[in-house]
């Protein structure tokens, strides 16, 4: 190879590098882009133009437009050919096809160039003066800033927030019925939701305080065990705690042929009307008395009055739920209606309940404030 075929040598190197690159197990996108752009848009057309016209007929602008245009045409016709092959239009097939074609054209062009002088079309001298360079640089800078400004503006474009709620029948082993319940928040800030589920109008379960940050998702698989053989209608409702009375989202599905429960419906643990105990703030090493009073329970859900004295101090209401497995969750809300603490725990066989808690910050997430709590039923 002589120096006059430098363009063809570079072409071959790029074609080979594309094939090697696509075979590598991991890829850095920038390199992939740099390598693939000439292979897709320039090299096949350029080498074919060299084969067909060599350097004597075409001027630079003609050569440039034919290189790009022919490359596009070769890509399109190549796609039709690859479609006929079992491998189809994949990265490796593209790299092989375009690389092979470029190699063949390059070798052909080199063969046809033998014996011809090196000097073909002389390119006009494109020397930039400092002044011209500065102007071009400024133009590029203004365009780059424009793109950045546009992208930033679009990313921060305000949109009305919304929340998705869904419920779908879920396939279960042994043909038992279940529903998949999910929530995804696209609100602008963290939102606390209450989710309820009913079966044929009867409350099944409630999630009293589901806190979701923007883009955060919550989902549960809820088994359904109807007591009768008829179709069972499951309804899910989503409430925002800042607007607790209004149904925010609502879904429902009807399930058919669910296996009925052979036993009586599982009973929920019965809560006492008053509990007392302690609450300990681990971060501040502060222990206080905790009173849960006026507890009213309706199957899974309960609510009542909450008092803390000696140390932490405060009172308000709480609401939550207890599962058949004696898992308990409730949220303490202050007198202004803001959820402050979230409690999680389990009921023991002797009736005592213990667990952990965390404090909520303004974004509705657990803050650094956290600790342990334990209460026992108390006679009034």
């Amino acid at each position, binding site marked *: 190879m002589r120096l006059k075929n430098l363009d063809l040598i570079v072409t071959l190197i790029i074609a080979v590098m594309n094939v090697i690159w*696509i075979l590598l197990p991991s*890829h850095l*996108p920038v390199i*992939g*882009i740099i*390598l693939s*752009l000439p*292979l897709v848009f320039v090299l096949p057309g350029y080498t074919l133009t060299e084969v*067909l*016209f060599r350097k004597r*007929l075409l001027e630079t602008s*003609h050569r*440039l*437009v*034919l290189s*790009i*245009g022919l490359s596009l*045409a070769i890509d*399109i*016709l*190549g*796609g*039709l050919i690859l479609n006929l092959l079992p491998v*189809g*239009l994949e*990265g490796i097939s*593209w790299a092989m096809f375009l690389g092979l074609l470029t190699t063949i054209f390059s070798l052909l062009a080199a063969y046809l160039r033998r014996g011809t002088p090196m000097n073909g079309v*002389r390119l*006009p001298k*494109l020397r930039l*003066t400092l002044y*011209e*360079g500065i102007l*071009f640089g400024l*133009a590029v800078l*203004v*365009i780059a*800033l*424009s*793109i950045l400004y*546009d*992208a930033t*503006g*679009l990313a921060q474009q305000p*949109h009305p927030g*919304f*929340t*998705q709620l*869904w*419920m*779908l029948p879920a396939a279960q082993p042994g043909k038992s019925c279940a529903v998949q319940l*999910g929530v*995804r928040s*696209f609100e602008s800030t963290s939102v606390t939701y209450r989710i309820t589920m009913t079966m044929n109008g009867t409350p099944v379960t409630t999630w009293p305080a589901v806190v979701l940050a923007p883009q955060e998702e919550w989902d549960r698989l809820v088994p359904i065990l109807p007591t009768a053989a008829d179709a069972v*209608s499951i309804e899910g409702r989503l409430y925002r705690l800042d607007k607790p009375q209004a149904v925010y989202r*609502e*879904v*429902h*599905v*009807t399930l058919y042929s669910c296996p009925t429960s052979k036993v009586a419906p599982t009973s929920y643990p019965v809560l006492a009307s008053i509990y007392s105990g302690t609450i300990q703030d681990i971060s501040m090493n502060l222990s206080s008395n905790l009173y849960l009073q006026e507890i009213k329970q309706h199957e899974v859900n309960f609510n009542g009055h909450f008092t803390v004295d000696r140390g932490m101090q405060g009172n308000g209401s709480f609401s939550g739920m207890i599962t058949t497995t004696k898992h308990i969750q409730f949220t303490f809300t202050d007198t202004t209606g803001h959820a402050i603490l979230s409690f999680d725990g389990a009921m023991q066989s002797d009736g005592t309940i213990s667990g952990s808690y965390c404090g909520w910050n303004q974004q509705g997430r657990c803050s650094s404030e956290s600790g342990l709590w334990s209460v026992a039923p108390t006679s009034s």
Partner: protein
Amino acid sequence: MQYCPSCEAELADHAVFCSRCGGLLSATVAVDEARDKRRSLVAADDIEQQDTLVVRSLVAANDIEQQDTLVVHSLVAAGDKRHSPSSVDVQPLAVSINNSLLSTLYHKVLGNLPTLMQHVFAAVLTRAQDPKAEELPTSRTSHQQMVQFRASVWGWLPMLTLTSAWGILSVVYAFTTLRYFTIDVTIFFWLGLLLIFVPPMVRLISPAASRFERIGLLCVVGICFYLVNVLDTPFAFIGHDPLLHTRTADDITSSGHLFTENPLLPASPFYPGLEIVTNALSTLSGLSTHDAGIIVLGMGRLVIILSLFLFYELVTKSPRIAGIATMIYMTNPHFLFFDAQFSYESLALPLATLVLFAMARHATVKNGSRWMMLVAWIILGAVVVTPHMTDYVLDGFFILWTLMSIVQHPARLLQSDLAKTALFGIIISVAWVNLPGNPVVSYLSSYFASAFDNLKQVLNGASSARPLFANYAGQPTPLWERIMAASSVVIITLCLPFGLLCLWRRYRYHALAGALGIASLFYPISHAFRLTTFGSEISDRAAAFLFIPLGCVLAIFITQFWPTRRLDRKRTSFIVSALSVMLLGGVVLGEGQPWQIFPGPYLVAADSRSIEPEGINAAIWAPSYLGPNNRIATDRVNGLLMSAYGYQRIVTALADNVDESPVFFSSTLGPHELSIQQDGKIRYLVVDQRLSTGLPYLGFYFEPGEPGAFEHTVPIPLEALTKFNTRPQINRVFDSGDIIIYDVGGLINAPEKP
């Protein structure tokens, strides 16, 4: 033949500048020689005696056009063998006028007109056939200026690139502000467009710019206009057509094969050129379909600018006319947005213009012309599988070009490469149309049948014409935009006859120029469809093709009627102002009302203005939880989203012969609605309750054929959209506030998957 002292390129005898490097040749000598020729030609016994008589009367009247008159003589007598360039591979354009019958005719006509009219007609004819319209000013100062201007190859390109960049910033400012506020800053958008367009246009009209500079300026303007479209929605393709093609591209990527189903645009998978190139780039580079598509279209934009310029240059033999013509093409209503979007026509047009360039170049190449024809055929093959309409228009133009060629040289029919190319194009087009499953014939025939039927009704008075400058939601177009749009059409229509006259006087023996002239005549006709409801799109879409000949005709008109020696600031400003009106009017014509151009809050059934995060995220949710390819019935916008983002199978009248819209319009869910769902085997209904909040901006909510389409007077009642809640067999599986998804599988026993 002469040679450029700078690059030694072979040039025609009459050349003043080097067509390759733009260098100035010995202009003074050329002018002097031209003067000598004029004298000798005036004295000659001219075959165009009638013309001469008319002109002489003007000379006697000490007309200011004296020099032009002399020029006419030189042209008339030119015959014009002496001016025929004899370069190696470039054949001359015939510029002679020796049709005595015509001369006699217009002499008789002109002779009976008043003197003033004679004067006007003579001046017009003189201008139209001026062969030295591009001759440089002869004054010493002007020459010095020219030489000074050409001191750098770059010329004004760096400075004008900067002004265009400011134009981009101005456009972006308008877009960004409108995303946040409702204040009217649209003026910055229009100002930005003018900043991109006007300074380069002024420079391109000037004779001082080098060929390299002209090409550079055209590329800058073309790419900046492309950026305007990209920066409107930089992160994703938003819009009807881009979303349709995104689905096809994603299907190719996921399956690895072509010809998958796309019910929203069944023809799209059969014309996958754009998607193939996008697939090649995305699979090789790892880029997403969107990012790869942006780059592919950018390359397409570069190709169309270059190939148009080179094509026009081959026709007119003038880089200056070619530059002006290319800029005129950029004023076409679809150039800024429609032909820059991710749609098959956006890549097909560049390839089609490249075919035209290749065949035009083929006609001028003596050695190696068969290879140039091979190039044209390869690209033509790619055009056939890229978009159907561009292919058919290209075939039609080749037939016209061939006919023009045959009329001039009947004996060459069998040897004509042009005829072979036209035949090749037709054969592969027909073969592709007959590909099993290709629905394009029924797709196009039903559309054009509706359009022509609609036009017939309007012309007969059986149907009222579509109201211009108003949308179906009742918002009128701002007055100044109406004026711009109407003015652009008026300017083009008024200039067209003069452009054709210039073409006739200077290029009528050039088959390609003749074909371009005839093709441009379709422009006024195409506007008739604007009065129709179904065919209004034809006018806009036709513009992308018709502006190719129009650009040439109007550029010749400009250069003939405002020759370089008479150009001054006043005249240049006049020309640029008219072209700016064409640009702004074209944008208004192509995009319609401001809501179609600018970002802003949600609007009902308004394509890109109806696409927002809630709809997109509902579509993204669907494949994750429902799986792909469920048969879904929904409105136009959510159908697009569910197809492109949700990979669902949308039930449409086009693909399924089922109009599902009555299911949504009806206040009850009766047997008729159930039978529609059963016919369409619909599994899910996606209901957007916002449809009840307003009239559709596009004129319809679901499909153009829906009951009451383009005639809705009240929005769909909310009760009609919420009636599905009460049927126990229908599951309400998804709720995001405005968008509800119902599972109707239990109601109609639809299959799980198609």
